């Protein structure tokens, strides 16, 4: 029974037709996790009892005729989502024994729909990273080539989908942390518009940039998940009250006349030749489906990484000040006083990348530097947002690569943080602009590594990028290839 390979909508059909039960599908997933996770490391916590209890409850709902498309579907969540009563570490030693007293709104919403929780997924510590090499719980490996990174920070979320350890997963995206691992692992990753999905119960990294989103096998699943997650939440004052449409209804398959912008700053010399070839082929495919291409410019693209690494680190230095050993998390022993308790708890509990970003952010906000760094970055952020506003006056979506290269080797960039940061160049501007974007499989490198294509939409334009991605996906077979593991 190929339940492991099923999409959400595919598994739903089988559950509804009683070809398989949620308990059977869940058991198959749990066995799969046990079999391959030693090679991949996607999971920090597996919850087999919870999963089987959830599955049994789902089967009762199904028998009573009260199921919907998500009932009984086995999912896993990045370990950044608070799950009441279930250990949540955020990939950090400082929270290695933290058991949340409440749940994230996104998790509550999925629970109401009767999903099955398989466990909590590995990630870069506090969502800071592009390779899942900075987790306190081990590096995650790319299922397509286990000598390579899966991407980050939602590395476990992407690897689990690619390795068929979950039907779909949740991640978060602050500078590309859903889209880039989705691209490197050959799955669909969506970052909704800022404010579309509640951040309540999502451990904060950079509060003006963080967003929750799904990683899935195909675009239809992405639309299904977004529909379940989106909506105003009174517990998140940054969530918006914009009505939630039926995203699956947007998947008409028709992109005739769709105006797609190609920003010249993203198609630079030095792009990996396999990435360039995939983009060229994708453009041809979209043209054959009737889309029109427009050359556009996003002139401040080159300043996005610098802007991000000032704003995100500044916000992170503030958000991570709460980890002081007082109320929760790791508290150092044998301290000489209160200040020593804060300092030792944080120094023992945080990894190097987290410390580096806290230091950068603290510097950028410190007296004498605040205007030159943080405020300056916020002004450049305005210029970047204006680039997108102007571009969207003439196009409906923007098409770009997701990453300059396919997945790099484990260890390749760990000693040069700046090189690591520069690899986020295509995804970061979207978070700064606050708008939506997704990564959809668009090809493979000559070495068999997945290459994703990014579609960027207007704020709250998820229906358009989902429609475009779906039409492209249905005209290609990239999303049907499976990692051999």
């Amino acid at each position: 029974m190929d339940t492991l390979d099923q999409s959400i909508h595919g598994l739903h059909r089988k559950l509804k037709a009683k070809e398989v039960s949620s308990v059977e599908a869940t058991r198959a997933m749990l066995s799969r996790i046990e079999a391959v996770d030693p090679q991949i490391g996607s999971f920090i916590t597996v919850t087999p009892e919870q999963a089987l209890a959830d599955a049994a409850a789902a089967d009762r709902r199904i028998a009573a005729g009260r199921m919907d498309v998500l009932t009984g579907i086995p999912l896993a969540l990045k370990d950044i989502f608070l799950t009441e009563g279930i250990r949540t570490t955020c990939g950090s030693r400082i929270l290695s024994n933290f058991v949340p007293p409440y749940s994230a709104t996104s998790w509550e919403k999925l629970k109401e729909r009767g999903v099955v929780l398989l466990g909590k997924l590995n990630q870069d510590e506090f969502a800071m990273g592009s390779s899942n090499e900075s987790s306190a719980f081990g590096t995650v490996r790319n299922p397509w080539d286990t000598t390579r990174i899966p991407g980050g920070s939602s590395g476990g979320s992407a690897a689990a989908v690619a390795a068929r350890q979950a039907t779909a997963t949740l991640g978060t995206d602050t500078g590309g942390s859903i889209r880039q691992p989705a691209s490197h692992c050959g799955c669909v990753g969506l970052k909704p518009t800022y404010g579309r999905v509640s951040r309540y119960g999502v451990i904060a990294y950079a509060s003006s940039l963080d967003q929750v989103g799904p990683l899935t096998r195909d675009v239809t699943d992405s639309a299904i998940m977004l529909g379940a997650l989106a909506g105003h939440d009174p517990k998140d004052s940054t969530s918006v009250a914009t009505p939630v449409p039926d995203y699956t209804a947007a998947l008409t398959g028709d992109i005739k006349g769709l105006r797609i912008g190609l920003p010249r700053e993203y198609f630079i010399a030095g792009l990996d030749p396999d990435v360039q070839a995939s983009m060229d082929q994708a453009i041809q495919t979209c043209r054959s489906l009737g889309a029109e291409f427009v050359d556009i410019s996003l002139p401040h693209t080159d300043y996005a990484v610098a802007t991000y690494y000032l704003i995100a680190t500044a916000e992170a230095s503030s958000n991570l000040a709460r980890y002081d050993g007082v109320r929760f998390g790791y508290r150092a022993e044998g301290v000489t006083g209160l200040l020593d308790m804060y300092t030792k708890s944080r120094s023992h509990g945080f990894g190097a990348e987290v410390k580096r970003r806290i230091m950068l952010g603290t510097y950028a906000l410190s007296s004498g530097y605040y205007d030159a760094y943080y405020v300056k970055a916020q002004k450049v952020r305005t210029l970047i947002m204006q680039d997108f506003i102007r571009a969207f006056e003439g196009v409906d979506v923007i098409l770009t690569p997701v990453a300059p290269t396919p997945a790099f080797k484990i260890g390749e960039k760990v000693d040069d943080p700046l090189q690591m940061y520069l690899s986020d160049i295509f995804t970061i501007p979207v978070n700064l602009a606050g708008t939506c974007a997704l990564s959809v499989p668009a090809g493979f490198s000559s070495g068999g590594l997945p290459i994703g294509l990014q579609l960027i939409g207007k704020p709250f334009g998820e229906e358009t990028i989902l429609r475009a991605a779906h039409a492209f996906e249905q005209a290609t077979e990239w999303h049907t290839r499976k990692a051999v593991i």
Partner: protein
Amino acid sequence: MNISVAEVEHVARLARLELSEAEKNLFAGQMGAILGYVEKLKELDTEGILPTSHAVPMENAFREDAACPSIGIEKALANAPDRVGSFYRVPKVIE
């Protein structure tokens, strides 16, 4: 850009972090490189540009000033490294 070990120590103190000598030197080099890179923002004229602190146009999100139940003392203190009754216990705050 040159970041001295003294500057690293100052920032570490502000951030309540303690670094080894090796870490201080490593961070001085890495921070220097990163801060040197972000200097490129100086190339842009941002005269008259308002800073963006919030990505979507929003105003204050208010709610009714009505008391609602909270998670309660037991749940709130469940992860306390050290508690006494309904309090967190910490080293002396005021000398």
